[in-house]
Structure formats: structure tokens, C-alpha cells
């Protein structure tokens, strides 16, 4: 791949981050709501201080968060803080910073969602490819069908059903949380196993719901590819069925699916909010949920910005991977 293309893609990434930051900066300031005022008004209602003091406190807080400076100055400072990955303090959990909150929750989300997205991509595409392959045994072609049916079950319901049957009735898996209550996180096999046991049901809920989508799109691609001349010629060459399936059929049918994979990564956070809520996991979805309930604007917009940057970066990475899979893209 040419250096020019790499540079162009990186410039595009910077443009995306800049636009996302700008939007994130201006949207809350367009809103008539004032997070600081609302927060202290709430405190004042529960009793404590006089309205006069309230104004002073709000002014002092506004100064501390730099909200009294001219808008352009604020914008400039904000862009600087984005570059330093310093999104300021949480209103709700002061003196925790935004970065602290994200760093605490993001590992949980990333591991669970990236692993499940990859797993359902692999399972769904393999099953979909087999479902469209005329020489596959009948039973193998049927395996994909239940996943397509499960696609219609909403993720929340899927989570609750799994919890009820596998967690509550059969007691095979814990009912929620990231690790058992009373356990102190540490680097040991025992703790790792405990975490893994807690991740099984959330992972299952995510995988069962998303495999069907891959099955459907892959089956559609597969039907097209199996009629291609090169697949026929491969059989004329006397190749074995597995070689034809893997090198001629699957390899080609997978190309558009990889683009779909990059798009699926973009929806990861949406699923996180639902699943982490259902299973009580301390991930970014839960953090975002809490921030929304508490009107913790810096955290909400910080997370939105963080996610935008993460997804944009992943997209650019995928663009660098694509030419490795399709030589026709390498040249131009």
C-alpha cells in the first residue's frame, strides 16, 4: 500500500476526531440546561444552604470548570484537552476525572464485546457459508437455521431468559456482576476463572443475538460465489471439497463481510449498554447509563467522544487490513 494512501487515511482520521470534538463541545452549550445549577439546586432542595450561597457556589464551580471564559477560549482549551486525552472532571464523582472513569470501565467492555463480535463473525460466517454450499451434508446446512430465528429475540429478553434458565434455575452460572462478591481483584488463575464464569452468560446473549445476521448475509454472498466460474474450474481441476470450500468459495464470499465487520464494531457500544445493564457489569455502558441519570455532562460527552475516536480508528485499521485480503484493492 502506498505511503500516500496511509497519510490520506490518517488525515481523514484526524478530521473525524476534530469534527467529533467540535460537535461534542458545542451541543451541550446549545442546551439551556446548566448541569452545575441543576446539581446544586437538587442539593439545595434536600436542605443545606441558602439560595444566595447557591449562586456563589455555582459561580465558583463555573470558574473551576472554565465555563466563565469566552466561548472561543473554552473551545481552544477543549481541543487542547482532547489532544492530551484529558476530558476534565466528573461532576458527579468529583474528583474522579473522565479518564479515570473510562479507564476503569473500558477494559470490561472491550474484552467482552470484541471477543463476542469476533466469535459471532466467525461462527455466523462459517454457518452461513455451509448453509449455502450445495455439497455440504443436509444436517450441516440446517445448523444455521435456529440462529436466524434467535435474531428476532430482543437482547434484553435474551439476557433475562439466559439468566432465568441457566443462572437461576440450573445455577450453572452466576446471576450478575463482573466477579463474585467479596473477591478482591488480583492477577491469579482463580480470579481469572471467576471473571470468565461471570462473562459466559453476557457473551452468550450477545453471540446468540448476532450470529443470525452474519448467517443471512453470508448465505446470500455464498449463493452468488458458488456459481462463479472459478469455483467450477476448481472442481474440474480435481481439487478436494474442503480446498474448494476454503480457498475458492469462502475466501471470496468473505470479502464484503469484512466491511460488515467494521460496521458491526460501530454498534458495539449500543449492545454494551443493554447487556451490561442486564448483567450488572461495570463496563462503559453502565458508566454511560449512570452519567445520563446523574446529568453528568462531561462524562456523557467524554464517553461519546471516546467512542467516536475508537470506532473511527478501528475503521481506518480495517481499511488497512482490506488490501491484505483482496489483491485487487492493493493496486489502486
Amino acid at each position, binding site marked *: 500500500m502506498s505511503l500516500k494512501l496511509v497519510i490520506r487515511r490518517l488525515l481523514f482520521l484526524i478530521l473525524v476526531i476534530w469534527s467529533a470534538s467540535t460537535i461534542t463541545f458545542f451541543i451541550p452549550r446549545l442546551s439551556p440546561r446548566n448541569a452545575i445549577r441543576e446539581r446544586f439546586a437538587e442539593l439545595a432542595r434536600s436542605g443545606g444552604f441558602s439560595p444566595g450561597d447557591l449562586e456563589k457556589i455555582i459561580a465558583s464551580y463555573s470558574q473551576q470548570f472554565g465555563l466563565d471564559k469566552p466561548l472561543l477560549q473554552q473551545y481552544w482549551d477543549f481541543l487542547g484537552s482532547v489532544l492530551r486525552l484529558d476530558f476534565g472532571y466528573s461532576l458527579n464523582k468529583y474528583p474522579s476525572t473522565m479518564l479515570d472513569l473510562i479507564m476503569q470501565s473500558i477494559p470490561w467492555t472491550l474484552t467482552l464485546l470484541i471477543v463476542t463480535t469476533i466469535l459471532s463473525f466467525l461462527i455466523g460466517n462459517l454457518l452461513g457459508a455451509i448453509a449455502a454450499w450445495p455439497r455440504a451434508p443436509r444436517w450441516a446446512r440446517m445448523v444455521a437455521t435456529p440462529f436466524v430465528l434467535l435474531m428476532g429475540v430482543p437482547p434484553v429478553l435474551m439476557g433475562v431468559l439466559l439468566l432465568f434458565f441457566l443462572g437461576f434455575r440450573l445455577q450453572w452460572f452466576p446471576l450478575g456482576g463482573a466477579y463474585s462478591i467479596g473477591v478482591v481483584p488480583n492477577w491469579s488463575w482463580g480470579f481469572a476463572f471467576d471473571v470468565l464464569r461471570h462473562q459466559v452468560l453476557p457473551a452468550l446473549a450477545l453471540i446468540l443475538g448476532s450470529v443470525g445476521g452474519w448467517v443471512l448475509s453470508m448465505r446470500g454472498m455464498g449463493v452468488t460465489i458458488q456459481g462463479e466460474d472459478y469455483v467450477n474450474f476448481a472442481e474440474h481441476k480435481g481439487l478436494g471439497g474442503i480446498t474448494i470450500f476454503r*480457498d475458492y468459495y469462502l475466501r471470496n464470499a468473505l470479502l464484503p463481510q469484512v466491511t460488515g465487520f467494521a460496521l458491526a464494531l460501530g454498534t458495539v457500544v449500543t449492545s454494551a449498554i443493554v447487556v451490561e445493564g442486564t448483567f450488572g457489569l461495570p463496563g462503559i455502558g453502565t458508566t454511560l447509563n449512570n452519567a445520563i441519570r446523574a446529568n453528568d455532562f462531561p462524562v456523557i460527552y467524554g464517553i461519546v467522544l471516546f467512542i467516536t475516536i475508537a470506532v473511527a480508528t478501528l475503521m481506518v485499521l480495517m481499511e488497512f487490513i482490506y488490501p491484505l485480503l483482496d489483491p485487487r484493492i492493493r493496486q489502486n
Partner: protein
Amino acid sequence: MMTALDSGLRPTPPRPVPPVLEVRNLEVTYYTDLGRAKALDDVSFTLHAGEKLGMVGESGSGKSTLALAMMRMIKPPGRIEGGAVIVGGEDLQALDEDGMRHARLSRIAYIPQGAMNSLNPVTRIGAQMVDAIRAHSPRESRSAVEDRCRAALRSVDLSPDVFRMYAHELSGGMKQRVCIAIGILLSPAVIIADEPTSALDVITQRQVMETIDKVKDEINAAVILIGHDMGLMAQFVDKVGVMYAGRLVEISPVRAMFKTPLHPYSEALISSLPNLDNKGVFQGIPGLAPSLLRLPSGCAFHPRCQRAKAECSAVRPAVRTLESGRVVTCHLVDREP
């Protein structure tokens, strides 16, 4: 009978060797929702090593079905109903599935229309040649396999560098050569080339045909050339077979075919070729090719035949081998011209 096959204009010494290919009473039926279509009806012919047979006929006449049936690659709803394809004394139709897989390419090779999409777009040409050899001799060393591939590329006049290239980096003619190179990798006894020149310009067509000629001589294979370009065929094949509605209506040595075609359909095909002597006059064949689902009674060609008799619409003509070895399926022809 064998000695008589090539008699007439190209005298060849008598050949006591048995034919390398014998197709006997091959029948293929497609079971469609609209009914049964007999795509191949009682097709028989023989071919010696080094011989080239051109198969011509309109679209839907069964040329490609014949090629697929010989490779045993007829897919449902089609079925091979009977007959034998004997290569080097062994009937391919009697082999089990794995035996047939091994026979493909090593004993009977199929060369597709390479200018189309016959090469895998995402892997290198080399990989597509290596896997072909590996499928038949898995224990051969990597370097020996690669040497064979490069030698095959050289014998179709391609640079050995093509081994490391991708299909999209090649021209239509080069892709066709790659397909030929793959076809000869294992020196098969029979090569079937299915419209190898259809999507190429006339210069490239000629080069590709010459390449097929050359590699055929190198490995002394029998070649079946499928196509509808009678003019191109005339220059390259020894015998011409004419197919109509799933039947082989005539096989004759190429010169005899063009000079004195036996079957009225062969005659019509040849006189439909553009001719410098009477420019501007273009003679097509009246009528349309019949649907295989509703074949005319008797001889399928009789509605379009200008010389049809009452017998033609009533009785199906039998395949007749004349004294000279020419084969014809027609009520009107019962002796040499």
C-alpha cells in the same frame, strides 16, 4: 472402421492402436419443473491420441452438456442417465466419486473460457496451479511442484513470472493461456476446451488456438474443442462434430465436412458462413432451435429442414456409420456422397 476415419483427403497410415477416448451412448436429462429435457441423447464417438475434434452447434444444442457429462460434473437437476466415457480403456462413469476426482485433470482435463472469471481473483496464479498438482500428488516436494508449474507456463508462452501474479494483472489472452497451462499440468490423455476463444479478439484467438495445438503435440493428447465458430474450427481441427438438440447429427473429417456436408443441418451451418464470393448475401438457417422440452417428432431438425420427407417427421433417424467412417444421423443420407 478406425482406419477409415481419416480417409479421403488426409491419407494416414492404418492405426492399430485403440482410441484413447471412446464416448458410448451418453445420455443426460435435466428434470425441470416444466418437464424432462433430454440435453444429451445417445452421443457416441471415438478419438485417437493427438486427434482434434471440433464440436459445433447452436446454443442449447448440448455441446457444453457433453463436456460436463464427460467430466461427470452435471449438477442437479441434471442427471447422466447412461452411457460410458472410456479413457485409456477405463470407463470414467464406473469410477467412485474419489476415483473420478483423481481422474479429473490427470486423465481428462477441462479448459474453461479463461477470459471470463475462471481464475480465483484473490490468490496468486501459482497457488492455483500448485493446489491442482497437490490434489493429485500430495507428496511431491514443493520445489518440484513449482518447477512443473513454471514449465507449464513456459509451454503456453507465458513468462514464469506469471506464477507470482494475480488474475487481474493479466490480459484476457494471458488468462486463457493460464487456463491451458493448468489443463496440461498433469499431461492428461484427453483435453476438453470449452469455447476457449469466445471472448477474445481475432489475433489473440489465433494465438490461443496455436498454443492449444502446440501443447497438444507436446503431451500427445486428444483434444475436443467446443465452440460455434466454424471458420476458426476449420483451421485447427481434424474432425468436426455437429450437434443439434442434444444429438450428434454428423461427424466428418474437416475437409469432407466443408466440401460435402452430409446432414442438411451441417450443410445449412456451413452455407451460413460469410463468404467472400457472394458478399452481402447472408444465409441464415430459417426457424429457431427447438425447445428440449418439446422436441419435434421424428428427426428434431425436420421443421427447419428444406429437404424433409414424410418419414422425417414420423421416424427418429438412427445413427449411421458410413463406409468412410463418417457418422450421420439422417434419413436422407444412406451412402457416401
